[in-house]
């Protein structure tokens, strides 16, 4: 099957910043993203878990598939939001079906 080279960017970010991130991505020309819930995690600021919490606490994972040439503006947009916050950004090479969608 015909596949096309792309990048998969995964951003784990605090939930209160979700909307800010997706708006920044849209401004940077990102055409699509998928948001996954996060149950808990651990890092330099300790272990946390979503159980029993009220309010926009916790984190979410935002996944973007993009053409390789759009990576740079995406990372810059994401970084501007994530910069002062906890959370991580990772980039993986991937292939996608239906390249016209990206």
């Amino acid at each position, binding site marked *: 099957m015909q596949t096309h080279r792309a990048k998969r960017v995964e951003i784990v970010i605090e939930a209160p910043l979700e909307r800010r991130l997706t708006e920044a991505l849209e401004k940077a020309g990102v055409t699509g993203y998928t948001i996954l819930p996060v149950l808990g995690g651990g890092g330099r600021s300790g272990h946390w878990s979503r*159980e029993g919490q009220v309010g926009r*606490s916790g984190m979410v994972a935002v996944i973007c598939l993009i053409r390789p040439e759009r990576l740079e503006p995406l990372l810059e947009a994401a970084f501007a939001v994530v910069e002062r916050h906890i959370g991580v950004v990772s980039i993986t090479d991937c292939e996608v079906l239906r390249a016209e969608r990206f």
Partner: protein
Amino acid sequence: MDGILSLAAANLGSPIILSFVLGLSAALARSDLSVPEAAAKTLSLYLLFSIGFKGGASVAAHGLDVRLGAAVLAGVVLSFGLPFVAFGLLRVMTTLSRIDAAAVAAHYGSISIVTFVAATSVVAGRGLEAEGYMVAVAAAMEAPAILSALWIASRGGERTDAEPDLWREILLNGSIVLLIGSFAIGTITGEDGLARIESFIVAPFQGVLCLFLLDMGLVAGRGLRDQRAALRPGAVAFGVAMPLIGGTLGLGFALLIGLSQGGAALLATLAASASYIAVPAAMRVALPEANPSVYLTLSLGVTFPFNLTVGIPIYVAAATTLVGAS
């Protein structure tokens, strides 16, 4: 004093407090008991809807008080002012950085709705009436403290991310909107409306509150367990002293305005309570460098249990004494 003690004892033996204690102990003992996130959120929606609606229906029944405006104003002034008091205290009592101290201060200027709800139960249990519009005062007190804290932080040269969007988010945050909205619905539909949904929002209320406090105990206990490091003696002392100061100021304003005994107890409780939902979320956006484990542990792990167990009986006893004497 005797009154306080017996009230405190009665309070401590109520299913509500004991449920909190159960949650707290379970978390400290590392039990895996937990309330699903969706359930906790839903219980809190229920409590907000119910308390707002009942407040509105009570306003509809008793007519609008001339003191409503004054009470809301007092709440706003308290919310603006308390962060300065808290910040000053924190700089003296603790070694927190300016930014951490500002973030903590925001929490103590704002309010905790569950503490308010618990106080309402105690007030009602003592047979006291309270002004229905106190829920509007509660809503009005949520946000101003954030402004003060950001101002304090920015004076210290701190960069704060307070874009216009943040203000919309804070002022229209879910709990304010639901509280004010259901208050309005209660006011419009009045006793008739209340009669229609009474067996949902009145009868099971105390029981739902038990489950919610079980969850609060679990969350507070988990916080205390994992973030013990954040609990320096100075900070703990602040977490107990600040509500007493806030409560005193709240009571002062209540006397000034001429609120009823119940209303005065509630305003004192609001001033004494510390936010643990709305303000933390705002701080993560606006002051991300402030350490969440400091302000969450203080607010939820120290001040909330203090108010629930010891604080509220004190505020109620003080209100009945002082307002009765006035």
